[in-house]
């Protein structure tokens, strides 16, 4: 049971790292951030 729990926690950390990457990409994939922020 402990093995399953540890495996789930490791997966949680990997998913959170993936979420961080996607959230970071929101700003950069959509183009030049500076030009997007300019009115």
């Amino acid at each position, binding site marked *: *049971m402990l*093995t399953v729990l540890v495996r789930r926690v490791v997966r*949680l950390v990997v998913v*959170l790292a993936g*979420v*961080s990457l996607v*959230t*970071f990409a929101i700003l950069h994939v959509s183009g030049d951030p500076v030009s997007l922020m300019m009115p």
Partner: protein
Amino acid sequence: MGFNEPLPVQFVRFLANTARGDFGNSFFHRAPALPLVMKRMPTTLLLTVLALGLSLAIALPVGILSAVRRNSLFDHGATFVVFLGTSMPVFWTGIMLIILFAVQLRLLPVSGWESWAALVLPTVTLATFSTPLLLRIVRSSMLEVINLDYVRTARAKGVSERIVIWHHALINAALPLVTVAGLQFGILLGGAIVTETVFAVPGLGRLIVGAIRQLDFPIVQAGVFVLALIVVLVNFAVDLLYIYLNPQIRVR
């Protein structure tokens, strides 16, 4: 803001700031993004939890009864309602409920989030989206389980039908339901954005939609991250519940 630095450097800095809960200041509100998001979060979370609770409260008894009385008039009626529910988009259901209960019957408020009466229409609207799927899962899982040998043995031992269904059969039938309910939680959080817009609920969804319109990236980043974090944590909780419900995993 460090946009002149290489992307990997910016990403590492972003990770470090995220770990501290720092997503920068909102360009529009001129305030830190995360507190603004967290201020709206309870509303969206309450709406989602209420909708999922209502869905389960309907799906469990109706699904079980549909499985027990397979091919009866009740079962066919439930199947019809399921197809009706899945074929109606959330925004349309919301508008129709507003026209009926708020405009014509004047029973409930059109929009807002000030009273308990205001929670009813958004919750019902969101629940119509998830109830049909959960109902189908309960029905099919129960159909698989109620014909198994151990259920027949319980009946043969003279255990009452109520205990056979709710205690013996439902625990095993609950495994796929728990998985789907966890996934539905994430989908409902996304669906809450549409529902919040229709009912003018001051939740996270409306904040994110407004931030996208205003190109307010710190708010979008903080909002998306918090929503994703909640979905991941809920699925982690589902995994733990799965371990509790399934003795095979505990033994492994």
